[in-house]
């Protein structure tokens, strides 16, 4: 048992995590592609036309999963950052930095698809309502994290400063999630609720879940591939990196 635990702790060192991440990311990328194919097939072929919104509602299959990911990735990024702050492990800060660009990308996708959905349905690309504004703040938190980290030369200090920002910003995630309950907003309520049965047809729910799985696998693959770059950049003067170059 003890051997099993120490075996896993081994991967907390960047030197051992670098080859592991290299082996793992193609599998997550492949799984993401498979889920995306099934998810798109449900989104466009299986899911019926909506009675009110016609074919325009199909944006839901990319908008809702992207919005979920923008919030999930932030929480995971903040968890890694907090772990790095508490335990002073090098890899934690690297993982937080590796997740931030992908999280920011999904936030942009969420805002972009939201605007393209809002225009035909509400008649406006953008409104300053609670849901949209708090999601925009999420984008600024990601960008602030990235800017702060790149402004500090010493990576360990950059990790610490970024971690504080990431942890303070966590308060925004429940605000986004519950904004449609707490305030009167133009945005519709939660599509999927944990407490009551889903308020939509099962095929639509499956389409959204599969697209969310595809994005989830994609995000793991992208962050593993990016953390390999960060490991090499930060450890470039260590002996193992020099030996690893054939």
């Amino acid at each position, binding site marked *: 048992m003890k051997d099993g635990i120490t075996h896993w702790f081994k991967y907390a060192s960047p030197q051992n995590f670098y080859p592991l991440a290299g082996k793992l990311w193609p599998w997550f*990328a492949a799984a993401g592609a498979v889920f995306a194919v099934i998810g798109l097939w449900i989104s*466009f*072929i299986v899911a*019926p*036309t909506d009675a009110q919104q*016609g*074919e*325009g509602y*199909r*944006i839901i299959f*990319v*908008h809702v999963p*992207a919005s979920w990911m923008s919030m999930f990735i932030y929480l995971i990024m903040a968890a890694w950052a907090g772990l790095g702050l508490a335990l002073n492990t090098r890899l934690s800060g690297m993982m937080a930095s590796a997740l931030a*660009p*992908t999280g920011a*990308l999904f936030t*942009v*996708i969420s805002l*972009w*698809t939201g605007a*393209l*959905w809002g*225009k*035909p349905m509400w008649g406006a690309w953008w409104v300053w309502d609670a849901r949209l504004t708090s999601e925009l703040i999420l984008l600024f938190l990601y960008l602030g994290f990235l800017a702060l980290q790149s402004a500090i030369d010493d990576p360990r200090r950059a990790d610490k400063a970024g971690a504080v920002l990431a942890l303070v910003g966590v308060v925004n995630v429940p605000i986004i999630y519950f904004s449609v309950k707490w305030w009167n907003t133009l945005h519709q309520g939660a599509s999927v609720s944990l407490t009551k049965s889903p308020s939509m047809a099962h095929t639509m729910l499956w389409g959204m879940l599969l697209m969310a799985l595809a994005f989830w696998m*994609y995000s793991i*693959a*992208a962050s593993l*591939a*990016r953390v*390999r*770059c960060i490991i*090499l*950049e930060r450890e*470039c003067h260590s002996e193992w*990196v*020099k030996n690893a*170059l054939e």
Partner: protein
Amino acid sequence: MHWNSLSDFLAMGGYAFYVWGSFGVTALALLMEPLLIRKRHNDILRTLRRERAAEEGIA
């Protein structure tokens, strides 16, 4: 199957710009990011190899 033809599918019931604008930009973004990551990885590897070659040249 509720699409009668390919053009019917592409028209998206009049919402083509909004639907394809959403899915298209998302697909583009998720194809671009891995390419940028691969470039970043290749760049750092090239720099490291060059540094090593320079060191070996001195030694």
